[in-house]
């Protein structure tokens, strides 16, 4: 008995504290693999970036590979000459702000209301909202519905349909249920109305989850492409940034269609720029905001996906 216990401890010691050669090899391979994968994830962004700030002639020849040569920011300055790009930025920024704000407010309110036992036919309405996550009429019926509602060639199509987000409502509901009910009750005793309770108690206390859904909503809005592609066919001034970029990447192959004024009027630009670099620069200008807010976002979305995982 005594012996075997001692043996156990010895084995534990061996496996726990001193690494066998096999383990060392494993650890080294493991770290190397992750390092390579990290490089794969980050290098493309770096590569794109050094190509936008290098000498354009070298870029065209494909000479910029690992580090920038002839650093200048003229490409970024030239962006203001790009057709409709300013509009695309305004459209995307405003929809990100308003769309996200309305979505967060609606999700918070709805998520709170469906926790209220007194709500008329509560479980029915909750199911009514949740069930929409599991069916999808399809792209064409959705499109025809938007046509029917007059949501084509219309900025409102970016804002209004996004207000109701069933999954976010569930997230808020789950979170609000974890808030102690006594807080609400005592406020109710003091004569606070439902909306006051929502504004003064529920909203501040559920800020973590609201931040999470706000992050997801904002990223979704910033990356929005499909609605613009399908609904705004003949309103180039309403294209989102992604749609604009798609247009330049896939549809417009030469500089003349991208830059305002055409070939003849912009000889200087024509000489120093080329459409490839302009496209890269637009892409980079779209990525940079995401990369800038990414560190702030990260802690929120990790929390969010954990909550989602608990649900799922």
């Amino acid at each position, binding site marked *: 008995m005594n012996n075997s216990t001692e043996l156990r401890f010895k084995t534990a010691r061996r496996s726990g504290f001193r690494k066998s050669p096999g383990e060392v090899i494993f650890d080294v391979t493991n770290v190397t693999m992750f390092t390579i994968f990290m490089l794969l994830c980050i290098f493309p962004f770096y590569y794109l970036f050094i190509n936008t700030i290098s000498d354009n002639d070298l870029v065209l020849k494909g000479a910029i590979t690992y580090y920038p040569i002839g650093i200048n920011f003229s490409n970024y300055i030239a962006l203001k000459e790009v057709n409709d790009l300013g509009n695309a930025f305004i459209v995307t920024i405003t929809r990100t702000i308003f769309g996200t704000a309305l979505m967060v407010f609606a999700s918070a309110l709805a998520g709170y209301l469906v926790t209220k036992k007194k709500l008329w036919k509560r479980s029915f309405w909750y199911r009514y909202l949740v069930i929409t996550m599991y069916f999808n009429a399809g792209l064409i019926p959705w499109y025809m519905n938007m046509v029917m509602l007059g949501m084509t060639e219309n900025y409102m199509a970016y804002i209004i349909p996004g207000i109701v987000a069933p999954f976010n409502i569930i997230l808020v509901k789950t979170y609000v249920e974890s808030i102690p009910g006594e807080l609400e009750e005592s406020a109710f005793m003091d004569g606070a109305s439902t909306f006051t309770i929502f504004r003064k108690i529920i909203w501040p206390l559920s800020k973590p989850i609201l931040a999470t859904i706000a992050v997801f909503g904002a990223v979704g809005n910033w990356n929005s492409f499909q609605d613009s592609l399908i609904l705004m066919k003949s309103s180039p001034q309403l294209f989102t940034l992604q749609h604009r970029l798609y247009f330049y990447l896939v549809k417009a192959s030469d500089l003349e269609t991208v830059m305002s004024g055409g070939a003849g009027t912009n000889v200087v630009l024509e000489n120093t720029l080329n459409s490839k670099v302009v496209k890269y620069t637009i892409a980079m200008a779209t990525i940079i905001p*995401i990369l800038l807010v990414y560190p702030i976002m990260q802690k929120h979305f990790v929390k969010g996906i954990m909550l989602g995982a608990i649900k799922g």
Partner: protein
Amino acid sequence: MKNTAISPRELNSAGELNTAKPSTLLHGILRLGSLILCLCMFFPGLNPARISNLINKNISLFTTGFSFSNLTTRFNAMFRQGSVNKSTFVLLSAASVVIIVGAVLCGIGGCMSLGNNRMKSRGIWFPVAGSIVISGGLFCIYRSYLELQASKGAKRAQPVFPSVFYLYAGLAAVLLLVSLIILLTERRLEKEEKMEMPEKYSLFLMLLPIIILAFVFLYLPLYGWRYSFFDYEAGGTLSRENFVGFKWFTILFRNQATVKDIIRVMRNTLVMSGLGILTSWVPMAFAILLNEIKSNRFKRLVQTITTIPNFISWVLVYAIALAIFSTEGFLNSFLEFFNANQNINWLMSAENTWLKMLLWGTWKSLGWSAIVYIAAIAGIDQELYEAAKIDGASRFQRVLHITVPGLMPTYLVLLLLTIAGALSNGLEQYLMFANANNKDVIEVLDLYVYNIGITGGRIPLSTVIGMTKSLISIALLLFANRISKWVRGEGII
């Protein structure tokens, strides 16, 4: 109104009991009428302002009121010639706004009729005012109809009298009548001092806007399935003449070209989903391997960096792909270093498209998908590891016997969800990477529906395909749910 107990006050005036109780029926009609009226505004088929055949059939009363350009797209030439007065349409548009205002007033009245007696009697003025306003709006529509008929360009403008006009007139009349009856019979009900509403209804009314939005944007698209039974062309109409029953469903099986397309598209879809299912364990492996790294700082760094691509849209991924894989891109420069440069445009070739799409998908989502597993690993009881260590289990054995089984429930749920979504590969990735060369192997179901429906304008056929896809997906989901219940004792939905 389910009055279970009669209060003493009501008993005192026993004679008044019947008249003093607000009529459930009348208030019910009032609410229902207002609700119908408010919803009608969003249905293009129920647009009383469609006074000419040239007005787009797909615009609702709401659009008529708020999007003048949509209303008059086909009249601009006539305005310029002067054969039709612009003022006619201004009047029409204004009338629509008036009707909308009236409907909103009726809606407010409907909401207030859920309150206590005092609120009911105050609120009754709203439908009275609202229905009068609506009548005024309808009169204006009628005026503009007459104007259009009398105009020089009457022949070209094709005026028609919308039959749905009578529906609105009828609704307005009913609402007016009901609200007047309530107004006259229930005046004596103001016993309460404060306007109040039972909490269950006030909560409901706060939720109502969200319920309506969900109905309009999430449920109403289902109504679009009707296009699969009609011979519809973009900009056309749905009527009894072009009702074709199941024609498009049979075309799906009979028409040689379509059948060939479908087989090709289904092959692509299933192969790509299949590859996704076959590699669904990769995020789990990623998480397990990451967990084996001792340094927390390195772990966090890996997590941070590898989740970045998930937040980049497919358009941007394509821009990156262009930078790396095009003729002058990084890969060719890199290969030049080994004297292996063949100046290939890697993006344009159709070789190994399925594999490439899988790799792009993995690149974009691997770090992100692993987060769920990392969270699950953190949730595994640490004592299990300690006990195993004491029992002499090696590192590998601990992973195999503790971590992997601990992650299995999560893996199973996600796998079942992946299987349930096998037909929905998404559109954006394939739309971006598609080109003339790889068209045949990259076109998945979602892209095919987009191509024939949105680009090709074949609405009915694409609706049929989308509808079939939706129904199969729901069936798959229910099936996956059943399996989950059978295996783990609880469902996934």
